[in-house]
């Protein structure tokens, strides 16, 4: 059952940057030599700097040949907002806290796509030839604040005068998209709920996930309304956590690891911040553009992907991701989850980590946390949630209600 979305190829897009695709095809942009993830959850008494330290420690332990102070030449760290801890200037702060030399240290902000974009920045730095070894990652500390304050800070990713000023929340913006999708395609609340059930089932096998208990469809459908039709269990978690990945030039990766993972495709796109300005409300055009660029660079199509970590900030977001990434046709996302195609034992497992839904969504950390899961899967360390013969994987990270999207494609090196 190979459902390649033909529309992906026929949509009108901007001209891709003038890169010689022949040069890039099947030649990695950069290679991953190590990765780390803090425990995700309510991490009382620990702040961003300390959570990032925890993630970095794992990455350094996995690569004993790498000397952080000698080898890491730059840091790109994603963080969605300074307001959570009233702390800006996260680049230098994180670099100092994990013991790097006085290298360039940059904080990247693209709302919920901050660390996905940080990864892309690191990749561009390595590809430019100016840097051989770069660390990328992300962090967010959220649970120390009351929910109402988190709700407010999260709205920063929307347009202030035309969205925040009208009382929107993030569940609200995705609910608007959900209703548009339901009206157009007949997608049901049950189908949305199935995404939550799947991701909680996967999350229960992930010791680092925020939430490890499973949920039934009945529990999801009867959970309290947050922004109709989205209910509590349709929404990802407010979580503390950090993630990081270490990239190198492909030809020196084996100095630091026996299991390098090559990044063979990368795409990023922006779209209007205010939802009302988008061409369509029932999908995320920026994600379509971003994955098109990534697939083209990798010389692959949706049917070649063995597993994916997608941006399920809300259940509807995962359903739209199936369609935007070409795993099924327009409007067929609900059917795809119903048919079990994206289950752990399905044709294209999605969010084996538990996704943002169960693993949690420490906003700035999410992008590179998706990469962490991909890396575990591609080196065969995913334990009970291991996908057999995983070779090619994709990450899909979205900022705000779709104003940023960044997609990466990875391949296990032989």
């Amino acid at each position, binding site marked *: 059952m190979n459902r390649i979305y033909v529309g992906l190829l026929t949509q009108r897009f901007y001209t891709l940057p003038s890169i010689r695709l022949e040069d890039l095809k099947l030649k990695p942009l950069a290679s991953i030599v190590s990765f780390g993830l803090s425990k995700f959850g309510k991490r009382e008494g620990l702040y961003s700097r300390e959570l990032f330290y925890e993630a970095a420690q794992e990455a350094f332990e996995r690569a004993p040949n790498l000397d952080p102070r000698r080898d890491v030449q730059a840091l790109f760290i994603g963080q969605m907002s300074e307001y959570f801890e009233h702390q800006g200037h996260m680049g230098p702060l994180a670099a100092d806290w994990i013991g790097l030399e006085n290298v360039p240290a940059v904080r990247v902000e693209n709302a919920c796509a901050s660390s996905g974009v940080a990864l892309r920045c690191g990749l561009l730095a390595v590809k430019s030839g100016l840097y051989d070894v770069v660390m990328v990652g992300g962090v967010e500390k959220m649970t120390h604040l009351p929910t109402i304050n988190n*709700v407010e800070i999260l709205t920063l990713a929307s347009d202030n005068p*035309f969205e925040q000023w009208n*009382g929107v929340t993030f569940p*609200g913006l995705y*609910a*608007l998209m959900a209703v548009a999708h339901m*009206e157009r395609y007949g997608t049901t609340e049950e189908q949305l709920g199935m995404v939550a059930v799947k991701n909680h089932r996967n999350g229960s096998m992930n010791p680092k996930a925020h939430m490890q208990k499973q949920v039934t469809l009945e529990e999801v459908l009867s959970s309290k309304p947050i922004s*109709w039709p989205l209910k509590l269990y349709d929404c990802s978690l407010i979580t503390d956590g950090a993630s990081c990945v270490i990239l190198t030039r492909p030809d020196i990766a084996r100095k630091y690891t026996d299991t390098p993972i090559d990044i063979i495709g990368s795409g990023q796109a922006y779209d209007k911040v205010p939802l009302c*300005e988008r061409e369509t409300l029932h999908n995320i055009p920026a994600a379509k553009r971003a994955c098109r660029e990534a697939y083209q660079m990798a010389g692959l199509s949706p049917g070649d992907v063995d597993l994916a970590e997608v941006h399920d900030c809300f259940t509807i977001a995962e359903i739209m991701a199936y369609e935007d990434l070409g795993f099924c046709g327009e409007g067929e996302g609900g059917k795809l989850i119903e048919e079990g195609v994206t289950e752990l034992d399905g044709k294209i497992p999605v969010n084996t980590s538990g996704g943002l839904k169960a693993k949690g969504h420490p906003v700035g950390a999410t992008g590179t946390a998706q990469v962490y899961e991909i890396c575990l899967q591609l080196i065969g360390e995913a334990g009970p949630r291991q996908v057999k013969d995983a070779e090619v994987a994709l990450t899909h990270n979205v900022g705000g209600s779709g104003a940023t999207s960044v997609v990466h494609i990875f391949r296990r090196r032989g």
Partner: protein
Amino acid sequence: MEPLEEKPTVEGFYQHCDRGELMFVECMSCGSKFAVPKGVCGRCGSKNVKWRRSRGVGRLITYTVIHVPPPQFKDQAPYVVGIVELREGFKLLSLIREVNPGDIHVGMELKVKFEKPNRIEWPHWGRYFFTPLKPEASSKTISML
């Protein structure tokens, strides 16, 4: 209505709201229309964009009922936010008020109303919002006015 010479800006948009006018932007090059004031066309990139006044009537194309609000809207929850497609062909996100949530449906006709600003500190803007369009007056009623 003739397009204005005034350049579209966020501040200007809300000043027009204070005068009971809902403005939208039209691109003189490609004809596309959009709500959020900008100096360039969001579709073709042309700087030849002008402001027009909308009649303020449209239909609801999607909506949600927000139960968990941000702090400034704490006292209004639950409240309805929707996206309205105005008759001139642009979309705008708005609060939907003066209607029971149970009576709201996609496709319903709405009209704009305005709320005066009530803050000194920034943001000091007023607000537009949408309410159900009242049934049109019969010709008999008009002749009596």
